[in-house]
């Protein structure tokens, strides 16, 4: 069980949806508080699999799918209204609804994409346009890829009838265009069905094609490729060992960084980086190019660790390797050629470790002029330890203290500001971690002096399995890299990302099992993904309404 509350900082009910209130969220996601299974061979008591029966494509999934569906045809740009991202992830099925504007945008996108596609009719068609069977062949073959499963005879007949019954003045290409536009607005394109079919024991299990989509959207954020479709057609995907073999190949493919990158980008809250203003007086050299460069550095680092480096959670937290250009290099105080290219370097291990000491992370969790110990502490507590924090009280003054050069450090200012008893309960935990980051300023530069005074980056971890004093964020990162709580928390978040839903109390044991295996694999992120895919749960679907 990974989630709890921070000691001395009571949140009230633990609600996975995060509302902290019992007045309206769906039940079923409450942590009932039972103890975790212990022992490696513990079996989970079979509980219901409470999952959505369908998942609308997230916008990233939709865009990637269109690209793969029509490659090599170039597609027009498209606009989609933003989705909510509960749990911090934009692929959470319950939030993936449509509204009037999105339906309109889907229509516009389908119209424009279909038009662009038929402009390259030769590429799009699997047959000669004057061949009488071409419409049917196109509908069958293109439809199977668009719907990510073979069309039923009824589907095929329906689309053929649609093709043939268009106005007489619509030519062949126009009809193909309308078929494409229709398929792109079909629920079988826009949604992934997770309905399953009854197995020998009467239990519903995901079909091979549903499993293929689960695998491709988890590992690639896109549709299956031909090989995965072939494995589904051959009925191989109900076999967990075969799934694992195929997933190993998928993780070696060029598409693989998309989903891993998306998970970490959202986990680290990096989308917020571009929204964080930085004070031009304090940081005259900071501009949008630097901002973009530091974001690229952190994404490259994650890509490196997961696919080229040690591949472990610990390495993600501690590896001082970096791939960067001259802009971010100057933030880190290292020198690389200023040629606009990315260069591999090892950062000073006394100053830098993994993600928590990277400029993009530090700048995201900071104020315009100063670091933010509360925000950095909050990130570690919530996103690395899966503990819950209550929101600040209503009358809390959330304004950062005014810098006092030569008089007080940022740390001292925050200590003063939160000294009141009704602040200190939570801020003791927040600052115990957050003060450990005081060597890094608002754009992530390493500092020995803060406001002209020596930096004190001593900290104190509370409420975890690795509690205790530490000195600086490098030691904090190393400490967290040994934490079982962190491993459990990351497993929990991958579970949410993989299944597109909040866990229920029934899932606690499943998550704990995945966590055990992750622990045995020394925290290998690829192994965690493979274990999720090869688990029995991966083919489960909701058994529908009782």
């Amino acid at each position, binding site marked *: 069980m990974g989630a709890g509350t921070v000691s001395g900082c009571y949140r009230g009910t633990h609600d996975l949806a995060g509302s902290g209130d019992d*007045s309206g969220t769906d039940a079923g996601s409450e942590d009932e508080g039972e103890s975790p299974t212990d022992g490696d061979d513990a079996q989970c008591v079979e509980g219901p699999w409470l999952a959505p029966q369908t998942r609308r494509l997230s916008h990233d999934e939709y865009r990637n799918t269109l690209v793969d569906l029509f490659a090599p045809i170039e597609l027009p740009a498209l606009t989609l209204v*933003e989705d909510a991202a509960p749990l911090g992830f934009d692929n959470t099925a319950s939030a993936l609804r449509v509204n*009037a504007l999105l339906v309109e945008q889907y229509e516009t996108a389908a119209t424009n994409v279909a038009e662009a596609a038929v402009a390259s009719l030769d590429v799009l068609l699997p047959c000669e346009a004057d061949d009488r069977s071409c419409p049917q062949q196109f509908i069958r073959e293109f439809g199977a890829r668009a719907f990510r499963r073979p069309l039923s005879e009824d589907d095929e007949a329906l689309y053929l009838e649609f093709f043939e019954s268009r106005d007489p003045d619509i030519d062949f290409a126009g009809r193909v265009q309308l078929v494409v536009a*229709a398929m792109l607005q079909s629920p079988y394109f826009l949604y992934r069905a997770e309905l399953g079919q009854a197995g020998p024991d009467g239990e519903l299990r995901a079909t091979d094609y549903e499993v293929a989509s689960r695998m491709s959207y988890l590992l690639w954020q896109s549709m299956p490729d031909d090989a995965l479709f072939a494995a589904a057609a051959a009925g191989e995907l109900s076999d967990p060992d075969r799934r694992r073999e195929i997933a190993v190949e998928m993780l070696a493919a060029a598409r693989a960084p998309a989903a891993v990158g998306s998970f970490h980008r959202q986990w680290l809250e990096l989308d917020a980086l571009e929204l964080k203003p930085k004070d031009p007086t304090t940081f005259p050299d900071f501009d949008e190019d630097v901002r973009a460069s530091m974001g690229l550095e952190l994404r490259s680092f994650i890509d490196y660790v997961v696919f080229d480096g040690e591949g472990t959670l610990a390495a993600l937290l501690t590896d001082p390797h970096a791939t960067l250009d001259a802009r971010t290099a100057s933030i880190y105080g290292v020198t690389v050629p200023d040629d606009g290219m990315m260069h591999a370097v090892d950062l000073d291990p006394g100053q830098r470790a993994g993600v928590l000491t990277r400029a993009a992370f530090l700048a995201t969790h900071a104020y315009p002029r100063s670091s933010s110990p509360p925000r950095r502490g909050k990130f570690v507590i919530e996103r690395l330890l899966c503990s819950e924090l209550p929101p600040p009280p209503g009358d809390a003054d959330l*304004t950062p203290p005014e810098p006092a050069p030569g008089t007080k450090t940022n740390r001292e200012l925050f200590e003063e500001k939160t000294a009141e008893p009704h602040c200190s309960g939570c801020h003791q935990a927040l600052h115990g971690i957050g003060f450990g980051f005081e060597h890094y300023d608002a754009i992530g530069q390493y500092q020995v002096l803060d406001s002209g005074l020596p930096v004190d980056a001593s900290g104190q971890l509370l409420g975890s399995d690795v509690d205790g004093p530490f000195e600086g964020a490098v030691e904090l990162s190393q400490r967290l890299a040994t934490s079982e709580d962190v491993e459990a928390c990351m497993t929990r978040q991958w579970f949410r990302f993989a299944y597109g839903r909040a866990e229920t109390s029934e899932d606690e044991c499943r998550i704990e099992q995945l966590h055990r295996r992750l622990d045995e694999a020394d925290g290998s992120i690829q192994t965690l993904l493979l274990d999720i895919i090869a688990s029995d749960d991966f083919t489960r679907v909701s058994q529908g309404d009782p």
Partner: protein
Amino acid sequence: MSVCSRRTLLRALGIGGASLVLPSAVRTRPASAGGATSPQRVIFFVTQHGPYDTSWRMAPNGASDDVAWERDITDVPQADWSPILAPLHRHRNRLLMLDGLSNGALLNSPLTQYHQSGRATLLTNSHFVWDDGGDATGGARSFDQILADSLATPGQQPFIYCGASQGPEGQIRPISFAGEGSPAGIESDPVALFEKLYPQRGMDPSAQLGARSIAQRQSVLDFVAPQLDAFASTLSGEDRLKLEQHGQLVRDLEQQLVPLECGEAPAMPRGDDLEQFFQLVALAVSCDATRVATIQTRQMTGDEFGHPGSDVHQDFAHIPHSPEMADYFAVRAEQFASFLDVLEAIPEGNGTLLDNTLVAWIPELGSGNHDAHGFEIVLAGNLDGAFDTGRYVYWPRDQANPSITPSDYNQNWGNPVGPPHGRLLVSIAQALGLELDQVNLGTVSGSNGIDVNLGGALDRLTARGG
């Protein structure tokens, strides 16, 4: 799980037509009295944060905050206007400043998520609900859409909800809702809105024929809708509702895909996104493509209000009487004034577009410190004479709701309070000829067991000194 029946939920989602949602909203008089033919329109301009009254209020000398007062602002020299409102001086004859309203939908409500809960209740006048992400969201159809249900005629875009969806504060929480837990989609791309108003612009005439024609696109939607129904029928619970909703929206789109008749296309308006939205909304209402619009802003960046590198929310919003917040709202006032300029520049009948348009500037909160009382709202235009403009009207905090005890509003929401803002919404609806006596919530229970009436019209809007 929700115990809502499917029919109730569909209804809450606004599906099934306006009559289901608003059976009582019957138009009782023509849109325009006196033989004029101009339609009446309403535009909401909702901005982030709340102003501090010290730099907003324009109290006459000797006026007390404890008693109601009003002031004729038409003869107050600009130098005597408050720092925030001074940019609006040039429109003084068309303005009705309201000061002291409260957000009645937050009465007796949990103290949490001030910005979200403010936005979720402002136009819904309904208790907020929690969405899947644990955020406060609208609990009912919002007033802009309720108005659109009654005002829109066939072939019109029922309403336009546009503006920023992203800002320095991240994703911007919605203020317009189709129904409970169902935020409206916001159009955040000015070019897309322009092309919706002028679909023929810049397009090869042949593109309106063949596979791209409206008729063919409608035929595709017509073909797709039954597939959504068929897929929905294989699902249960929330999933099924989601797909049924999708099917209905596809059918709605099929009806609305007709080109909006906005005439000859002008050049694409210039300026930043907000300036473009102001001009596009003005064009849309002037050609009667729509009669209701809601414009949402993003939080301004520091350099936009003269404090580069700052973050208004982190640095200033919560500091009582912060002069930087006054600067922030003064820029908003100038933006609002420029929007009124745009509306006044478009002739209509014997006057201008503003004569037949009501524009309401509503900050999301009563103050930078998240108060749900002490709202300061600016109305402009007067719906063909429905409101008595040129005035600043003030309500003290204890006037309208003597039954509200201090414990009703959580300490931080302040108490007691002025008249609930739901009454302003009712007054606007009635000015448009709708027979409506409450918007969503009619009453809220105070903790003393006495119901507080959120309905009825707001007093003092039409009668000078009344």
